[in-house]
């Protein structure tokens, strides 16, 4: 009886110490959840999720204030990645937020631009340069395709462009599924 109690006590102490030591030594310094969610979002900053940008949306998801299916640019793949990270079920994109479309770019028709700076103020990533009463232009490599600059433009001089698909952009397609398994 006594030996039993003694053994168990010693064992409990030993394991407790071991666990305590492991808890200190092997601590995983995980990123805060919002940071990891933010890393999965496409950073288009388009606001279609009803938040002002990707980061605020990520924080809302982390606080479970927003659902994971509100990001049209991320699309089905993005929702799957979020579901994997958060350990929940993937679901179809919420149609209220928009639909999944290929990424686009905008260009300003420089002939018609009146230099009102409204688009500059609307751009979430400062990808439009120009000054008041002077022509504006879009820095192509920095445009995320959010299209937030379209509504404010008073003269409709901003065009949406498909991203070029020439030989240099061509990617090898995914091979077809196993024929014999069909």
């Amino acid at each position: 009886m006594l030996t039993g109690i003694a053994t168990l006590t010693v064992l409990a102490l030993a394991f407790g110490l071991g666990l305590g030591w492991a808890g200190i030594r092997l601590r995983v310094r995980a990123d805060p959840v919002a940071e990891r969610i933010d890393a999965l979002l496409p950073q288009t900053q388009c606001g279609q999720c009803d938040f002002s940008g990707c980061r605020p949306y990520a924080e809302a998801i982390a606080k479970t204030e927003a659902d994971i299916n509100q990001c049209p640019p991320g699309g089905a793949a993005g929702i799957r990645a979020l579901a994997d990270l958060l350990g929940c079920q993937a679901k179809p994109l919420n149609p209220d937020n928009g639909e999944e479309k290929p990424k686009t770019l905008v260009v300003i028709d420089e002939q018609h631009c009146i230099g009102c700076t409204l688009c500059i103020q609307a751009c979430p990533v400062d990808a439009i340069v120009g000054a008041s009463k002077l022509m504006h232009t879009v820095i192509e490599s920095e445009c995320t395709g959010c299209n937030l600059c379209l509504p404010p433009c008073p003269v409709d001089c901003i065009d949406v462009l498909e991203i070029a698909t020439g030989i240099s952009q061509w990617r090898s397609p995914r091979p077809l599924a196993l024929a014999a398994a069909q």
Partner: protein
Amino acid sequence: MNYTDPIQVARDAGKHTHHFHGGLRLRHNKRISCGIPVERPALPEILAVPLLQHLGGDVAEPLVKAGDRVLKGQQIGRCEPCPVVHAPTSGTVEAVEDRLMTHITGMTGPCVVIRPDGKEQWVELEPISDVQNASPDTLINQLQECGLVGLGGAVFPTHIKALDGREKRIHTLILNGAECEPYISCDEMLMREQPDKIVLGARILRRALGAERVVIAIEDQMGAVREALTYAADCAECKSVKVVKVTKIYPEGGERQLIQVLTGLEVPFGGRPTDLGLLVQNVATAAAFAEAVTEGKPLIERYVTVTGNGISQPRNLLALIGTPFSHLVKACGGYTEDVARLVVGGPLMGYPVSSDATPMVKAANCILALTQRDIAAPQAEMPCIRCGECSRACPATLLPQQLHLQIKHGLWDEATEYGLTACIECGCCDIVCPSHIPLVDWFRYGKGELRQRAAEAQASDLARKRFEAREARLLRTKQERAEDMALRKQMLKDKATREGRAKKTNGDPADA
């Protein structure tokens, strides 16, 4: 530990030969196209010269427009820092428009279309007059001006490679004559017919690079070539040039595999041969360089093997860049009845084309016409049985079966860790697979996906940074404005009190 500097070891390149992992012994099928001496075919009716003929970088800007008359060797396209594109013959520019490119999808790209006048009138060429005393910079500049690219098939701009080599202070230039893919024999014919040019080009290139020696690697089955090259390299100034025979095993003509065979060293993961003090160039590039320096002649034609069971009389031709493949095939007696596929390059790494109207490019070392019998699979694709033949054959020592699963299931981090980017797409795994899984198709897809992901990650990082910077700036302006307002309010208040007080003091006497 006995540590030896890899660069020291690399200095002995070619002294002994070594092995690389895996590889295949294939029927080489080269003899069928080696019988007849190389000739130029008749001028075609029309030539379409693509403006993108090198790896990486931009499409060259056209320097001519429809209706212009061009001379043979005239510059028709250039951009910095890419190799210049030249007119292959004299004639009239018919159009600058999109034409078929050497691409699996049959995509089009910008070409200068020239109708030859048959006069073959040369532009005034600018050779380097005093080769012995020309500075390396002049020589390397000539590489770009004459449009030289790696003629082994990769078409990397030679001058960029050379500049990198000079910067890294390479000690050995390796000329790759190990043409390891079956059917292709254009380098072998070039080495047989123009060994002097190759040796001369090698010597000038060595000087331009500041290297100490040149090793020309040829395959052991090329008997006549060895004699020809050794004879050409038998001169007082050729002491630095050495011809080395390597055992024929595919893909030893791959840059990294050839280095391993010649030195026993491996190019560091993610590094370049220049990290070992080595630089590899194709023998045809060296010959073209000799012409560029001594005659000023730009790269407007190359040796090309037209071969395969789908060709009536397989042989090698000296073809102008821009010639449609159909014209070259006609010069070889046309197709046989059962031709089924047309490939630019060899059967293992060549690019299939959808039409023989595709024009000749600098990359095309072989036009291979295959019959259904050559390509028919004996069985449909089956699931992987993990037999491991693919990893046994892989010259990059990868585990293709694992990579295949990782790509299939989208495990991109794992695929990167297992070295997907190190795959050289040689096709060995594909050929030995008993389940007939199109492994190389998977790897091409996976590599494209990885590149795309990296680009997207970079773009989204940039967007995130810019968004955060903007948010911070907006916040700052707001705060500043608020502070400003507060300050102003305070000032107004102060002013008011001051004025009030002043009034008071002023008014006091009145009150009093």
